[in-house]
Each structure stands twice: as structure tokens, then as C-alpha cells.
């Protein structure tokens, strides 16, 4: 491990250790910040809303089996919570260093910019996982109540792991935009528009109308989170004619589990490398 001892009074810690230092102090900042509290409230409110709806209306799509419960409950809401977490914690993580001038406090010290970037990334992922954990607890608690069992189907564990991967990849993408812009508002807006609207629109255009598998879209990969909760797993593609007489058809693509993992992993690697490169090159002026 690289320990930078230059024969003087202080021994500058390795970049690895400095990464954890940044993660530690960013975490303290997040823990006391309003954004963590707001996100926690949103996650709990979504949980309460679903609990109330299911408890009052008792929909059969939720209560026919434990797997269908998780599919309906988790599949419809978790990706939204993940996107919100990524945007809340990652949206201004790097752009804020420029706009709020917090970077001026740290960058002029014996620390690599990559340690700052990765440290902040780790803290953002950690706090997103905490939000996910709260929502998972509400979900499992409800399932245990309706099915009198604390055991969860293995498909839900798979879905949970895919959700963790989605957090990492979505955070990578949001950090990339945060590195690209010096304005926090712009980086947050671009990330929100892309993750909530543009990707969905592209997926519809490319998949449904152009009949091309949208393997290059992150949200398509993230659909594996809900797909694994379907029994049986949906077919790769379903094409339906628009009407009995029309020659035009629409297609629905369902990402395979392996493909979903690869797409999310690919996004994480590419966006993190690109984001780091941008942050290394960006000037504090």
C-alpha cells in the first residue's frame, strides 16, 4: 500500500485511506443534512401510502402469493426510490465542489482528486443503501403481515441485489453529470430528466416502435429488478400487431437477468471512469 512518507514530520496517508477519510466526513455531512431527512421521509411516505392502499383495497394482484406481492410492491416503486437517492446524494456531489467552493477547502491539500471523487461516491452509495434498507424493511414487514411468514422468496433477494447494482450504476451516471457541470442545478436537472424521462422515451421509441433491443439504456437493464419477480421470467420479446388488419406491430423487450447485470455494470464502469477523468481535468476557476 502506498504510504507517502517524504522523510518529514507528517506521513501523508495512502490514497486508499484518504478515500475513506473523504467518505467518512461526507457521510457525517449527509447524516446531518436536510437531503437525507427529506429522502428518508419520502421513502417512508411511499411505504405508508402502499401500506394504506393494500390494507384498504386488498388488491388480488398483491395478495395472491408472496412473489406477486413483492413483484407488485417492490417492482413498481423501488427504481423510483433509487433514482431519487442517486439524484439527491449524487446530483451536486461534484458540481457542488465548484459551485459552493467546498472543493477549495480540500483540493489544495496533498490529496488526489480521485480520492475525493471516490470517497464522495462511496458516501453517496452508502446513504442510498440506507434509504433502500428502510424501504426494504417496510416491504418485508408488510409481506410478513399478509402471508404470516418472515421468509422471503429467493427472487426477492435477487431483486434486492440487482437494486444495489442499480444504485451503484445510477450513482455513477449522476456523478458523471455532476462532474460535467459546475452548476449543481444543471447537473441535477440533467440527471433527473435523463433517468426519469429520456431513457423511458428512448426505450419506447427504440424497442416498441423500431423493434431494436434497447440494450444500451440503463433503465432497460434495471427492469431486471422487476423481471426476476415474475414467475415464469418474461420472454425476451413479445411482438403484437397494432390491430388485426395492420401490418405494423409493436414489440416489448424484457431484459434477461445476465443482460441486466451487464448493462448496469457497464454503465457503472464507463460513467465512473469518464466522471473521474472530467473531475481530474476540471479547473477551479
Amino acid at each position, binding site marked *: 500500500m502506498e504510504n*507517502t512518507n*517524504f522523510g*518529514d*514530520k*507528517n*506521513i*501523508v*496517508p495512502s*490514497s486508499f485511506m*484518504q478515500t475513506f*477519510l*473523504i467518505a467518512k*466526513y*461526507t457521510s*457525517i*455531512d*449527509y*447524516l*446531518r*443534512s436536510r437531503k437525507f431527512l427529506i429522502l428518508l421521509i419520502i421513502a417512508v411516505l411511499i411505504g405508508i401510502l402502499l401500506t394504506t392502499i393494500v390494507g384498504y383495497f386488498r388488491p388480488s394482484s398483491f395478495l395472491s402469493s408472496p412473489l406477486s406481492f413483492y413483484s407488485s410492491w417492490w417492482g413498481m416503486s423501488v427504481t423510483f426510490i433509487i433514482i431519487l437517492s442517486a439524484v439527491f446524494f449524487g446530483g451536486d456531489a461534484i458540481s457542488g465542489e465548484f459551485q*459552493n*467552493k*467546498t*472543493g*477549495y*477547502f*480540500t*483540493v*489544495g*491539500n*496533498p*490529496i*488526489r482528486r480521485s480520492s475525493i471523487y471516490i470517497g464522495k461516491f462511496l458516501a453517496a452509495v452508502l446513504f442510498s443503501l440506507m434509504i433502500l434498507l428502510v424501504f426494504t424493511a417496510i416491504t418485508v414487514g408488510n409481506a410478513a403481515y399478509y402471508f404470516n411468514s418472515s421468509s422471503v422468496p429467493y427472487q426477492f433477494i435477487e431483486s434486492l441485489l440487482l437494486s444495489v447494482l442499480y444504485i451503484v450504476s445510477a450513482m455513477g451516471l449522476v456523478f458523471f453529470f455532476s462532474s460535467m457541470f459546475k452548476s449543481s442545478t444543471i447537473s441535477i436537472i440533467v440527471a433527473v430528466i435523463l433517468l426519469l424521462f429520456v431513457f423511458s422515451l428512448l426505450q419506447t421509441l427504440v424497442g416498441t416502435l423500431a423493434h431494436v433491443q434497447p440494450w444500451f439504456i440503463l433503465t432497460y437493464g434495471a427492469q431486471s429488478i422487476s423481471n426476476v419477480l415474475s414467475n415464469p421470467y418474461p420472454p425476451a420479446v413479445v411482438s403484437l400487431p397494432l390491430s388485426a388488419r395492420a401490418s405494423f406491430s409493436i414489440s416489448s423487450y424484457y431484459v434477461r437477468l445476465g443482460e441486466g447485470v451487464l448493462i448496469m455494470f457497464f454503465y457503472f464502469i464507463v460513467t465512473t471512469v469518464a466522471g473521474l477523468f472530467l473531475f481530474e*481535468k476540471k*479547473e*477551479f*476557476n
Partner: protein
Amino acid sequence: MQKYSIEALNLNKRYGQFNALSDINLKIEGNKCVGFLGPNGAGKTTTLKIFTDMIKPSSGQAFINGIDVNHEKKKALKSVGALIETPEIYPSLTEREALSMIGQIKGIPKEKLTENIIKVADRVKMKEWLDKKVGKMSKGMKQRINIAAALLGDPDVILLDEPTSGLDPRGMSEVRDIIKELKKENHLIFMSSHILSEVSEICDEVAMINHGKLLAYGSISDVVTKFQSKNKNIVSISFASPLTKLQTDKIKKIKGVIRVEIIDRLNLNITVDSNPKKQSEILSSLVKLKLGLTAFKPSSGLEDAYLSVFKEVA
């Protein structure tokens, strides 16, 4: 090859067609305070940012203790304390946590860190605020913490970019005292400033920059001797009541007064002979006029040299 504490070698920084820095060559060594003077946009902050790897030079190199900052940042900045512009600190952190973060980044041993934090906080008169959140503090208080952060770990080289910016007059005076004390403790302080009186009070040497070009570097006395207007000095004079045109004309006629510049009806700048005896005679003449003279303040030699250097360039 001799290792200088700070060395700029053909340092250039371009933004498109604009040359922010042009072939800066500067070598500083020893324990002293060097003032870095220049008007707004001259290139002072750009130079300091290159020395802290906040920006990259277009060409040339910046060395600290013989180590290239842009290639071996961690090694080069190991013994540097820097305050560039007015940094913000994560608002949810307390002063102690913020200083602890920087101290740990610098590698101050855990057993010394607590003591070191108290020492620097005490030095900037922020000891009582150690456990208060930074977000609730004023701009001046934050700037004191930034100075404290720069002093953590007893750095050999201290880079300060307008350190008194944002401070009230008392704070400015305290920071000047801190810098004077640091000079006695084996530090090289390289400090940019707009305030000439501050530089002449604190610094031993001065570097002057304008339009990205280094125009002068040397001891204050050398620079003053070289650039001060020959046999002339500017004196600021103030009066208790507004002057009439007739009264101003009387001042113009005093023997030894070369030029009168009207700042407003209460304040004038007069260019006079730099000979102290002649200045004394001018002062006596002004008193005899009974115009309600309240101040007679000859400019420091540095101010005169500064104006002379930048007039030559303009």
C-alpha cells in the same frame, strides 16, 4: 540543481486567446514573507492555483521544494498550507471536524492532531467555536477556519490568497499579527494582496504582476529604490471643511507642490518633492493657510513604486 521553496519555470496559462500568465519565472527560498501584488485580473490567484494543482498550466512548471506540483501533487503539497480564495466548508461539519478532516488528509498523527487543532484554532481566535457547525458561522469566521486549516501540520510553505478578505478590521489586524508571528517560525509565506499597506507592514519581499507578466521581484527596499518616482512623493491631505476653488489654488501655489489632484472637496492628493525637509516646509505652509488641515499622510515608498510600475505597463 538547487531546490527552491517555490519555483515557477516559464509558467504560462492561456484561456483561448487570453494569456492569463506569460512566462512567469520566479524563484523564492528561505523563511520570509513575500507579497504578491497586482491589480484585479493580473494573474495572482491563477499563479497560486497552479501551485496548488487547482488549475493546470498551459506550459511550464511549478515546483514546491523542487517537486513538480502537477506531476507529484501529494509529495509537493505535503508541507504546504494553502488558502486560495474564500473556500466553503461542508456546512454540517463542526469546526473541529473540518480541521480534523484536513489534518488527517495531511497525515498529522492522531495523538498530535487534537493538540494541533486547538493550537491553530486558538491562533485564529476560534477556539470557543470548535464544536459549533460551520454552516452557522459568518464569512469572517469561516475565513479564520480556512486560515487555521492552512496552518495545520506546521507547513514549511504557506500560500495565502488575500487572507484578510472577508474579515472585519480587527480580524484583518489579527491575521497580520499571525503572519508576522509565522515569519519568526521558519515558514515561507507567499501572500497575494491588494492592500499595499498590509504588504509593506508584513512582507520582506514583493513580487509585482500585471497582465500575467512578472514585472518586479525583490526586497521591498530594492523594489522601492528601483521604481519609486525620482524625487517625488504623493501626500494625501484632508481638511475639516470643504475647500473652495480659491483655497485649492492657494495650495497649488505653495513652494514645492508639483501637482494637486482633487479627490473630493475634503481630500486632496498632492505630488511634492520627496525631500523630507521640503515636505516639512509644505506642511508648515499648509498649516499657516488655516484651512482646517486634519491629515497629512505621505504615501509609503511601496505605494509610489507600485503606481510607478503599473503606470509604466499601462
